[in-house]
C-alpha cells in the first residue's frame, strides 16, 4: 500500500489500513522518539500519541509533504514537548532521571552480562555521558543529529522535515558532531 492509499483509507476509517500503517512506521517513530528521550518505554508511549495524532489529524493533512515527513515532524514535536513538560517540574525530573538512569544502567548491564561489575558501571557511565552530551546540543542541532544518526536519513530528507535548506542541515549536523566531540572530550579530559 502506498502512502497516498494509506491516507485515503485511514480517512475512510479503514482500521486494517491503519494497522498496516502503524506496522510500517512504528519502528521509525519509536527510534526517533528514543533518540530524544533515551528511554524505550517512554518512547513507545510517545509513539502511541503520535499515531493517535495521525488518526485525529489525517483529515487536515494537506499532502504538501510526504506522509513520512509529516510523521517525523509529529514525532519530533511530541518528543520535544515531552522533554519540555519533563523539565517543568524540576523535583519530579530529578526523581525520574534517577529511576531512568537506573533503568538504562540495568539494560546495559543485562546486555553485557559477560563484563566485570566495574566495567559495567563504567560502561553505563559512558552511556549517561553520551546522552547528556546529546541533550545539551541546541534544539536544531539535536533534531538534525538524531534524525541523521538514529534514522539514517539523508540531509535532503532532514531539510524537508525541518523545513530548512540543505546547506543549513549540513552546517547543523557538522556543528552538532563537533560540539558533541568537545563535550565528550571535556569529560574524558576530566577523568
Amino acid at each position, binding site marked *: 500500500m502506498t502512502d497516498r492509499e494509506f491516507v485515503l483509507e485511514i480517512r475512510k476509517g479503514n*482500521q486494517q489500513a491503519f*494497522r498496516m500503517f*502503524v*506496522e510500517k512506521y*512504528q*519502528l521509525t517513530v*519509536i*527510534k526517533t522518539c*528514543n*533518540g530524544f528521550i*533515551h528511554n*524505550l518505554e517512554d518512547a*513507545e508511549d510517545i*509513539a*502511541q*500519541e503520535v*499515531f*493517535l495524532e495521525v*488518526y*485525529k489529524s489525517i483529515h487536515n493533512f494537506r499532502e504538501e509533504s510526504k506522509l513520512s515527513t509529516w510523521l517525523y515532524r509529529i514525532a519530533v514535536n511530541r518528543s520535544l514537548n515531552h522533554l519540555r513538560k519533563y523539565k517543568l517540574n524540576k523535583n519530579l525530573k530529578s526523581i525520574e532521571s534517577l529511576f531512568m538512569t537506573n533503568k538504562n544502567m540495568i539494560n546495559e548491564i543485562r*546486555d553485557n552480562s559477560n563484563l566485570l561489575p566495574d566495567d559495567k558501571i563504567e560502561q553505563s557511565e*559512558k*552511556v549517561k555521558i*553520551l546522552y547528556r552530551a546529546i541533550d545539551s546540543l541546541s534544539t536544531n542541532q539535536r533534531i538534525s543529529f538524531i534524525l541523521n*544518526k*538514529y534514522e539514517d536519513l539523508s540531509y535532503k530528507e532532514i531539510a524537508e522535515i525541518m523545513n530548512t535548506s540543505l546547506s543549513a542541515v549540513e552546517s547543523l549536523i557538522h556543528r552538532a*558532531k*563537533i560540539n*558533541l*566531540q568537545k563535550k*565528550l*572530550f571535556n569529560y*574524558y579530559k576530566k577523568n
Partner: protein
Amino acid sequence: MKCNKLHKDLIFFAEGSLTPEKKNEINYHLSECNACRKFVDELAYSLEIIDKEKKIETNPFLFSRILNKINNYEQSANTFRVFALKILRPVFVILLILCGIFSGIKLGNSYSSKYTDEDSELQIITYYLNDLQHESVETILLSEESEIENIN
C-alpha cells in the same frame, strides 16, 4: 601541535566519513599519539552506543494500545457531542430567551422612566394651549377671513 590540528576531525574519523587522504593522515598520527588514539576509541564506542540504541524490536502490542487510545478518544468525543446536543443546546436556547425577556424589560423600563406624571400633564396642557396648530383647516379659514376684512 599536530593533535590540535587533527583534533576537530576525530569524530568524523571515528564514524568513517573522511576522505582517504585525511584518513591516512589521522591513522599515521594515531600510530604515534596514544592520547588521541584513546579518545578515538572512546568516540567510536559512543557511536556504537547509538547503533545499539537503534536496534529496537517491534512491539506486537503497540497497535492494540493505540486502538485503545483511539477508542477512548472517540468515546470522549461522543460524550462531548451528546453533552453538547442534549444539554448545552437547550441551556443555550433558554439563556437566549431569558436574555431577550430581560432586555425587553430593561428597554421598557428605560422608556417609561423618561416621562414622569408631571411631564405628561404638562404635555396635555401644552396640547390644549396650542390646539390651533393642530387644526390647520380652521387656521386657514381664520387667515382667509382676516384677508377679506382687510380688503373690505
